[in-house]
């Protein structure tokens, strides 16, 4: 059972990194205090109790969920689009979400409003992209048309976002928009988790269920159909699930790039291309990756660094490495 042991090893690493991460932060937590909190659920230090339960724990769970879901949707998208270069925002979900959030910030809506607008913006962008590809029709390569529609919508919403930034108050609103676009896990609270975790489950479970069929889909439309896979139906399931998950995460964290592009490569390198194992491995790798990135974000310098900046700085050299490797052999 090579695959089972791989999953177990990943779970072990994830637990160790979690344990390490929960102790990191401005308020120092001694290993002894952490252990007694973990074993009893209480702490003699009231501050510690509040910090661990209300701030660190939600942030930890949020990081694992966000990284995991982004990486898993990325892996599913790469399989479906038959292209290892796509990421979960290929159909415009990030730019749609960015526009939605900026609009909400401009309208001075509360945090919940920003989340709602961002989620709706992300979903809307993908729906428009998919409808455009439908109107162009079946006579063309449908995957290519879909990707091109996504690029069109991304760039359109990017332009709309620029317009909002241009008219935003430069002392107050513009920094808020800019900061939101850089991404951060700092504001995730327990209340957010009760909303995003069910959505993440709702999006992740269908992807796991169709994972075997994703393998077949990566041979192309005609071959997949002749092997008995309903390609249209598969596309609906994968796009819907990945979009739901990505829009939901972006709505609470802001835009976090690169995770959905890089982590599936790393996972494929270790677990192989079979999506049955690749999807859960991507999820666990994504969770570990995001925890480490978030640890760096909150501990490298005295002010917190937006997480999107770190994922990009770490992601770029990773990607160059994979490109170099792929120049020699296949993905």
């Amino acid at each position, binding site marked *: 059972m090579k695959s089972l042991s791989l999953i177990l090893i990943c779970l072990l690493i994830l637990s160790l990194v979690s344990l390490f991460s929960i102790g990191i932060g401005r308020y120092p937590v001694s290993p002894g205090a952490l252990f007694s909190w973990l074993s009893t659920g209480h702490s003699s230090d009231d501050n510690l109790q509040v910090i661990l339960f209300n701030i660190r724990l939600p942030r930890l769970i949020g990081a694992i969920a966000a990284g995991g879901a982004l990486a898993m949707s990325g892996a599913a998208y790469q399989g479906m689009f038959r292209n290892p270069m796509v990421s979960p925002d290929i159909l415009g979900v990030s730019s749609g979400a960015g526009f939605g959030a900026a609009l909400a910030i401009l309208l001075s809506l509360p945090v919940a409003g920003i989340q709602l607008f961002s989620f709706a913006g992300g979903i809307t962008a993908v729906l428009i992209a998919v409808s455009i590809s439908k109107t162009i029709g079946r006579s063309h390569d449908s995957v290519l048309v879909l990707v091109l529609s996504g690029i069109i919508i991304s760039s359109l919403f990017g332009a709309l976002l620029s317009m909002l930034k241009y008219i935003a108050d430069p002392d107050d609103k513009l920094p808020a928009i800019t900061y939101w676009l850089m991404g951060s896990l700092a504001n995730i609270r327990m209340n957010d988790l009760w909303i995003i975790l069910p959505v993440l489950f709702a999006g992740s479970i269908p992807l796991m269920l*169709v994972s075997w069929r994703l393998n077949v889909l990566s041979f192309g439309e005609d071959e997949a159909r002749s092997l008995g896979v309903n390609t249209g139906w598969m596309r609906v399931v994968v796009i819907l699930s990945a979009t739901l998950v990505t829009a939901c995460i972006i709505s609470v964290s802001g835009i976090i790039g690169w995770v959905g592009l890089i982590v599936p490569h790393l996972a494929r390198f270790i677990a192989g291309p079979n999506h049955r194992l690749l999807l859960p491995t991507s999820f666990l790798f994504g969770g570990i990756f995001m925890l480490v990135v978030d640890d760096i974000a909150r501990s490298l310098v005295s002010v917190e660094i937006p997480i999107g900046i770190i994922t990009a700085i770490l992601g770029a050299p990773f990607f160059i490495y994979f490109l170099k490797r792929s120049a020699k052999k296949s993905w």
Partner: protein
Amino acid sequence: MVIERTISLDLSRADLGYEGRVVLHNVNLSIQSGEIVCLLGPNGVGKTTLFKTILGFIKPLAGSIVIDGRNIAQFALKDFARLVAYVPQVHNSPFPYKVRDVVLFGRTVHLGLFASPRQKDRDIANSFLDLLEIQHLAERPFTELSGGERQMVIIARALTQEAKFIILDEPTSNLDYGNQVRVIRKIKALKKQSVGILMATHSPDHAFMIGSKVVVMDKGSLYRYGTPEATLTEETLKKIYGVDVHVFDTPQNGTSPRKICAPVMDL
């Protein structure tokens, strides 16, 4: 060994093509499970259109395509894939699946919607790796195989699908001479598998080597149907390909007798 019932795939009075453009007119063709039919014709004559229609990718403009007494328009995708398998001309996957897994993908149609293969499915895939003598490739990445090896793997996948008919689109294109012969030999040996094979080829010699039925296509319709010896005459080859070809008997030196083609080179 269970003797399986013969199933037939019939096209009758079918017009094939795309919206507003008939490529093949009044096609009548019947293939039985257990026989191999080679399809010959010049480039652009409509072989791909015929294949796409039989595979259900495009609908016939008129007439019907019937498998085992049922019109293929009535089949659900899944039921259809249990009857007809497809070996396309080019195979590419961007991901380096193991050969064993690629063959196993043939089982997908026999699995539940959310299921993955069981031991029984692995055994079936394995038996076809043995049959095609590619067991030694099993653990290698599909993407790193040669063209001939990939062709064998995809044929194994089609057999693993356990369909009644297999449509092979020019299985020897892009293969070197040795691999062409090896692939043709394997295809000929598949007669024992009680599966019906429709195979497009550009080489009349391949049809002679396989020695089964031949369909010759010419502009707009099926031109001739029959045994290779009766169908692939010098006149027919001249008519469809526009070049002079001599057809000889092989010399009596050990190989089983058959015809071979030699294009005329003196101008």
